[in-house]
């Protein structure tokens, strides 16, 4: 049906739309968390609803980020070998960082309240 580029575009736009309310929520949350102790912070992040929103936020931003950087690499790097290497690196970077963030949220929720 849709080719790779179309899919790429659609996914980038879809994650962008999801992120509009999520980023607003995230910014407000961060401002409210200024000066929060570790106990206060983990209590916030460990709440089921917060953790769920964080998980969706993380999955969305890291995927969106990877797609965006893919486009940048494809625009500026013309040598096929360097291009495919960078695209691979980009994927690895986004996956590792995204899953580290995701894992952290899971650990915080499992730790319970302190």
């Amino acid at each position, binding site marked *: 049906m849709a080719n790779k580029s179309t899919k790429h575009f659609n996914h980038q736009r879809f994650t962008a739309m999801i*992120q509009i309310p999520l*980023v607003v929520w995230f910014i407000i949350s961060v401002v409210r968390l*200024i000066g929060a102790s570790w106990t206060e*912070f*983990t209590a916030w*992040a460990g709440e089921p609803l917060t953790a769920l929103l964080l998980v969706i936020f993380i999955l969305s931003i890291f995927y969106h980020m990877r797609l965006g950087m893919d486009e940048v690499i494809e625009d500026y790097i013309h040598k096929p070998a360097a291009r495919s290497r960078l695209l691979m690196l980009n994927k690895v970077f986004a996956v590792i960082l995204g899953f580290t963030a995701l894992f*952290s*949220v899971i650990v*915080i929720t499992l*730790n319970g309240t302190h």
Partner: protein
Amino acid sequence: MKVAMAEEFLKTRPTYAPDTDKMPLSPHLQIWKWTVTMASSILHRATGIALYAGSVLFTLWLLSAAVSQAFYNQVTGLLGSPLGLLVLAGFSWAMMYHLVNGIKYIIWDSGRLLEKETAKKVVWVVILLSFVLTGLLWAVALGMKG
């Protein structure tokens, strides 16, 4: 015999694929006259790249809270230092710009507000909004810090 003939054929065969390395490049940034819409597009990419780098801080922040109280205090202390706040100021503006300008693209993609003069105005609104929202964010943040 057959192999030799095949090799001969391959040698004389014209290549139809263009040699992209020797082709002239299409005009790029140094050629075009700057326009405000073009600048907004370049800024969108630049802020996207900045946020890509900033995502390391986001992950570090969550990771530190998952690891230990001491690590969390170290990371938040670093973020609250003068240098950390400067980085966060840039990070927050990049986020605001990318957010508001991203919404602009979604509106443009739907075919609205695309007339030349309107489009220019929209770009200025986006730039202004990004600074206003960032200023508001920091006013509240610093107010909370006391």
